[in-house]
């Protein structure tokens, strides 16, 4: 009897949600934030979106997963705004948010020190790992973009980032984690 390929089996709702989190968590939060103008609220909206995904028929949602997620996310974000009767207050809130984002000099200094510390640990990695990590997290590049920038294959990029992150987990002091 031939061995059945794992991915040939029908995807369960749990697996679909796990994959959806992996692939769309960050883009969805970014999208929700453009509507609700607040990161925490955007996270709540996306959390709720993934919970709703559990209630769907996997077979029906799977082929249009991205479209389903962004539609539900948008509707949920608008619901949040409506519920809180905040539509007319959005502009004020943006102003408030900007005001509350003003940091004290002490906070800025502490953050700068923290960034410098993390960078010093990245610098201790082998050069190719450090480069891949910086491009990924500082520049926000995808594996594909890093591949184009460095001339490495995406497989090599994945390996360097995997190894570099693992090394960082082992070496970063607890107060930085």
């Amino acid at each position: 009897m031939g061995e059945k390929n794992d991915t040939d089996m029908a995807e369960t709702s749990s697996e679909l949600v796990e994959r959806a989190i992996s692939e769309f968590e960050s883009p969805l939060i970014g999208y929700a934030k453009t509507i609700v103008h607040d990161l925490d609220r955007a996270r709540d909206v996306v959390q709720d979106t993934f919970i709703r995904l559990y209630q769907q028929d996997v077979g029906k949602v799977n082929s249009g997963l991205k479209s389903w997620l962004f539609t539900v996310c948008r509707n949920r974000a608008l619901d949040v705004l409506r519920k809180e009767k905040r539509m007319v207050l959005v502009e004020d809130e943006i102003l408030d948010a900007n005001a509350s984002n003003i940091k004290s000099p002490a906070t800025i200094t502490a953050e700068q020190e923290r960034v410098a510390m993390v960078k010093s640990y990245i610098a201790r990695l082998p050069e190719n790992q450090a480069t891949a990590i910086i491009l990924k997290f500082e520049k926000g590049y995808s594996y594909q973009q890093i591949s184009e920038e460095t001339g490495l294959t995406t497989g090599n990029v994945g390996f360097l980032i995997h190894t570099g992150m693992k090394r960082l987990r082992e070496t970063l002091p607890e107060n930085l984690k």
Partner: protein
Amino acid sequence: MKIDINDPRITAFALGELTGSEAIEIARAVRSDLRVRAAVEETRETAALLHGSVGGGQVGLLTTEQREAVHSAGGEGPLTQLTSAEVSFWRRPVIVAIGAAAIVTLGVFITQKNGRDTREVVDIEPGWDWSAVAMENLTSPVVVDYTGDKPPHAQTEASATAVAAAIREDTVSFREELHKRISEQDAEALQKLPELKEQDWHEAQGNSGLTLPVPQASGATSWPLLQRYITENSALPPISAVRIEEMVNHFHYKTPSMLRGAGLVADIELCNTPWNPATMLLAVHISSDVKLTAEAAATVSFNIQQVSRARLLGYSSLKSSATNSSIRGMSRSHGNYVIYELELSGDSDLSIATLQLGDEVAASLTVYPDQAKSWFTSSADLRFASTVTATGMLLTTTTSAGELDASRLLSLLGLLEEKDKSTLSGERRHALTLLTRAAELVDVSTRSGD
């Protein structure tokens, strides 16, 4: 296919870089292999750190708690306090100590289900085949069967230890399997749960002290059963299906941090009882510390100059000792939220209770009267957990319920929604809807004289 824990695709998956069949393959591994899931979580944490520092911006990722809430909505528990994915499963100290007993005894459970009378050893791997474990073992309640200073594991039977160990290491798939079976079984089979007897009050009078255990485990049967009865049948579940500790611990709570010791970490909080002016509620949220260490008992000692009597809410004992397949001992992979009810006899400034983790003197924390809060100003976690508890009490027609009735519960639920509406997670919002429906059903039942 088993995924190598060092497979770079795990990192790519955690960073959202994997698509197509490879993403499906890793997603499948995340659901079935605890080591892979822990590796993904670790990578996400490191990614959040890097985004938040060298990335210079806010982290566009869900928090660990939010991801756990999403997983829980799919019928599984959280992945908390798991030992590092880098450590081989069988090398973990706890498993080495009890592994043999676990394997043999789970083998017995499995063969019992299959009707065989052999004690063959079953090869159990992480991501165990819970489908082979009999329903009565999956749905066993955790039973607290000690008082005073005897740690629970000293009285633990081998069979109970095995299940507790298995659940501890494989909480996710245990819950997944249990929820799946509950959703598939016919209603008649679901009613075959052992009858329970609620915890007695422990009196201070005539005793030199009053110390109760802090249970570190809960089963997972009650909430999915409650959901099924109420949403599918618009009916109240049988009393034997209502286990307060399982209802409370279906949900996630803020990670405890107030007290550490003996490999445990815990928070403690005191507030008035919103349905009984004569009593107070003491909540203890306990979990394992970063890494699992030797098992230790945790206790709450009540000051008998202040407290006349106290009881655990939930953790009912079995009425029949013949059906004694209950899980004793602990499963610390899932933090446990425990609520005690106490009656005060004094009104001095003396302490009310002391939480003790293990035997270390330093690992204790004492609560004084001035730390007591009103229910309305207590933490959101305590407000929520106590409301779930009140629902469980109402559904089991508990004794000493004070002024608790459906109307009072509906008021509490309304207050909770009003006060916490902006911060309630989706999981808790759904729960409030279900609890409200339960209260309404009790109300109708009471009015019709059923």
